């Protein structure tokens, strides 16, 4: 080889190595020097679109705001959005497309707990950080995997545990009647309710009913036979209305607390019960810092109106779950900021696992822990008399902790 050829070969090698270096520094898909690609999915159509449509809209507007303020460590957030129709097949298809075709950096999706669970194994196997949208997702969160985070609205465990805390502390209840469902959600919320009841030395009498129950007289009589100090209803909307109505007919006048599971449409609940007299001692579980339209969270609704004036003018918009979209997007943005400019999936998931911040929307902070990937453990409560909502002070916490069997 001549001297000229040797220098030429060395120069070619140097150029090749220089070209390869940025690729080595950014080996995780979905991240470039200027962008981070996030895969968002939820029900945008179908019978369950109310659970996800406005939540995704809210997340979009927070991501857009973040970009307008300069992005995350100099990178703009780029969203790829898929419709999962709130079905397991839809979630798996959306996740696979986002990961394999769109090559997203991380996932921020899922509004329906039962639907997200089947994607758990795929996500963990491919080591992709995933923060669910507004699904409780207890089945996907526990046991903790290190990659899946969620319940930025509230988990079933947290909802069940914190309502016992509220009943015991707010009413001084020593005996609590608890009616839930005999499905997976029911087992999760009852597990935590029993834990907190034991912790706070409260006697818990529970009855689990089918969601399709036709007559609630039997389970209600059974729990009321113990003369409880409070009745907690942890069912879906239809059975909840039947229970409230029957409890009123039976003359039960102690506090009744309806949890998040059945409180999506309180006006319809009043209509279904048939009388506002049934709501004289009635409380509703929430996670927000204020009632809808209240001063503390008005900014979220104003922001939605600014971003989506046409949607905001339509009935049923924004949907009840809209603010959760902002919370989940805040969590993603904050975790990415914490992970730093030298961004990898590993750093992002580690940052998420210890993230804690106040949302300005929820009654308590979002706080992920290494042994607990559920972000929100606190609930708030409002008194509802059939017409007026009055926020009660304070937030109540579930002390339930996951323990490996």
């Amino acid at each position, binding site marked *: 080889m001549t001297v000229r050829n040797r220098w030429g070969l060395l120069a070619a090698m140097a150029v090749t190595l220089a070209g390869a270096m940025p690729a080595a520094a950014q080996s995780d898909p979905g991240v470039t020097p200027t962008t981070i690609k996030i895969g968002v999915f939820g029900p945008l159509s179908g019978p369950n679109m109310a659970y996800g449509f406005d939540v995704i809209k809210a997340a979009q507007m927070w991501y857009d705001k973040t970009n307008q303020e300069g992005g995350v460590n100099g990178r703009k957030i780029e969203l790829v959005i898929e419709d999962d129709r709130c079905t397991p097949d839809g979630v798996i298809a959306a996740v696979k497309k986002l990961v394999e075709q769109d090559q997203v950096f991380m996932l921020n999706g899922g509004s329906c707990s039962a639907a997200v669970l089947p994607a758990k194994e795929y996500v963990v196997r491919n080591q992709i950080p995933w923060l669910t949208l507004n699904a409780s997702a207890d089945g996907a969160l526990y046991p903790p995997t290190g990659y899946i985070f969620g319940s930025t609205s509230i988990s079933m465990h947290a909802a069940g545990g914190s309502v016992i805390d509220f009943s015991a502390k707010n009413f001084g209840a020593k005996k609590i009647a608890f009616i839930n469902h005999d499905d997976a959600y029911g087992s999760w919320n009852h597990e935590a309710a029993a834990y907190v009841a034991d912790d706070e030395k409260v006697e818990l009498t529970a009855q689990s009913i089918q969601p399709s129950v036709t*007559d609630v007289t039997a389970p209600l009589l059974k729990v009321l036979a113990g003369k409880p100090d409070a009745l907690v209803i942890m069912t879906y909307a239809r059975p909840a209305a039947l229970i409230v109505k029957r409890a009123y007919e039976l003359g039960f006048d102690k506090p009744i607390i309806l949890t998040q599971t059945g409180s999506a449409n309180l006006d319809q609940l009043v209509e279904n019960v048939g009388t506002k007299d049934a709501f004289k001692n009635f409380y509703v579980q929430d996670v927000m810092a204020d009632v809808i339209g209240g001063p503390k969270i008005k900014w979220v609704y104003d922001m939605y109106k600014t971003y989506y004036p046409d949607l905001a003018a339509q009935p049923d918009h924004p949907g009840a779950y809209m603010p959760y979209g902002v919370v989940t997007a805040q969590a993603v943005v904050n975790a990415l900021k914490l992970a730093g400019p030298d961004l990898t999936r590993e750093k992002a998931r580690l940052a998420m696992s210890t993230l804690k911040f106040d949302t300005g929307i929820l009654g308590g902070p979002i706080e992920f822990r290494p042994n607990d990937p559920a972000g929100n453990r606190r609930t708030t409560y409002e008194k509802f008399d059939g017409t007026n909502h009055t926020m009660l002070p304070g937030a109540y916490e579930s002390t339930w902790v996951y323990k490996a069997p």
Partner: protein
Amino acid sequence: MDFDTALIFLEQGVASGIVTGSVYALLAISIVAIFRTTAVANFAVGEIFMAGAYCALYLLVFVKVSPWIAIPATVVVVFGGSALFQAGVLRAVRRSGGPINLVIATLGLSYLLKGVVRQTGFGETPRSFPSLVPNHSLTIGSAFLTWLDLAILTAAMLIMVGFFLMFNYTRLGRAMRALGMNQRAAQLVGVDIGRMNTLIWGLSGALSAAAALLIAPKLLLTADMGTVGTMGFAAAIIGGFSSFPGAVIGGFVIGIAENLVGLFIAAHAIAVTPFVMIILVLVLRPQGIFGGAQEIKKV
């Protein structure tokens, strides 16, 4: 559980069970009426019941017509819809296929009705229409009942008595019985089979609509409320799939058993009670409590 509590539970279980059982009985009669005369198991009975409830909801709550118009209108609409289904769909299916195709057609109807209700958007949120009876209550012994409960029971009993009288003492009832015994012989004596089948389906639909009008204020309306049709089938199987009195007794048995199991065992056992009873009946007396002796038919 002490004796006093057990007695209260027993009285309440029986009282509440009789009320819900009366509605199951209406649905069971609706199923038996079709099966006994046309040998078709109508798997759309629950969704026809659901469609009747939503028809009433639409008229009472959205169009705001008087209950005196809405109630008969609902019964007429469901009667007409059921009759049309038989005349337009089942007749064609019967010509081209065997009995299993007829059953599949009823399954198709059930999915169609549920899909239509979901498409309207009304089916996603539980809804109610106003009770026609004041919201008062009374105590019979230790059992607590509302005026609505008594109205449901009374109306259901009147409908059952009316159906029984029609079936046993009218020309129409005679024709229905003849059809159930032997279709060819009935045809030979002048019974118009096609017209009778259509009429029977219409009557069955009307019974389902009546059941819906009675119990919808108590159950609340959702697109999935048709699952109560399963109770009608359970009642029909227990009582005897070819016996009207059996269907009535079966309805009350299911209603009472559900409530007693819920009170004395566990609430989550309520759902399995009808199916456990079905299994017991099928094992011990397959023709049902009031079904006739088993017979072998040449096909």
